[in-house]
């Protein structure tokens, strides 16, 4: 049994401390995923809070069999984002993600400008992808999830995830190329 499994087991018994450790481990990744999807800081905070609240209140219904805890959290988060767009109909440009959220210790001014420019372009391109393509790229390359975890979180097969990833990268490449023209 892994440390995470032990923490989940304790949290299922109602131990807040154990769930607190799980929260600390996953809060940044879930917030990042949501912020890149909704492009609005306060909404991202609100949704992240809802994800962990729901997870805490329903942790007894979580079955570790075949579903990683991270996948379960991402599944809740993805559903929250779907509900967010369904109810609020908010379509804020992903470029609005405040740069102060990007932690980069002491970069040189030249490097910072280049980086900001690159990040701005990639966020803009990312926004133009299909929701599933966004999910896969964020989970895989930004939050470092395995294909298996992504498949579980999005309730798709491994093959489907690889296909989505391939198409997403291809599309992103085209979009970045267009932006550079």
């Amino acid at each position: 049994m892994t440390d995470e499994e032990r923490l989940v087991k304790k949290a299922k018994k109602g131990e807040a401390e154990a769930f607190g450790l799980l929260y600390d481990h996953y809060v940044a990744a879930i917030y990042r995923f949501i912020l890149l999807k909704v492009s609005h800081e306060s909404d991202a905070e609100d949704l992240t809070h809802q994800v962990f609240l729901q997870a805490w209140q329903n942790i007894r219904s979580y079955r570790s069999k075949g579903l990683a805890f991270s996948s379960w959290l991402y599944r809740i988060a993805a559903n929250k984002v779907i509900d967010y767009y369904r109810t609020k109909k908010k379509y804020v440009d992903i470029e609005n993600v405040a740069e102060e959220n990007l932690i980069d210790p002491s970069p040189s001014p030249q490097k910072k400008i280049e980086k900001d420019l690159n990040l701005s372009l990639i966020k803009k391109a990312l926004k133009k992808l299909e929701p599933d393509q966004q999910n896969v790229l964020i989970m895989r390359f930004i939050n470092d999830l395995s294909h298996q975890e992504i498949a579980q979180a999005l309730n798709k097969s491994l093959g489907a995830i690889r296909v989505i990833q391939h198409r997403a990268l291809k599309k992103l490449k085209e979009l970045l190329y267009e932006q550079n023209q």
Partner: protein
Amino acid sequence: MNKINKKIISQLKELKTIEPPLLFIQNSRQTIFLSTPPQAKIWAWPTKLAWGLGLILVFLGLFYLGFVSFQKPSLSKNFDPKFLEREFESLTVNFQLQELSYHQQINQTIAAALSKINENDNQLNTQALKNEKEKIDQLLESNYPSSQIEELLNKIVL
């Protein structure tokens, strides 16, 4: 993976630096743990048990119905040659017994009827013949006296 893809992926990884504000983490964490902790649903087990038992009963019922219908002679069984042969034999025996009893009754009836007829016939024969003979004799005697008849016969013969 080509160079461009690698570059894109490295650019995507730059977004990994996005972090939630520390104040948000503190507040959110505190609020979550102030909320009601997860509790065991005491009704969950009985409900699941009831559903399970219900399903088992339904399956048993279906199994029983299937078993009962299997026991009853079906159309396919009726076409079994051995079954048909047995049925035919039992039918023949029944038929023969019925026929025998019918013949017995008929024979008795006929015998009784014949004996009755014989009795009547005897009475009819003696009485009727006597009467008839007397009538004929009288008639012949009145119309054709015996002397006349003899003459006529002689004429015909000669």
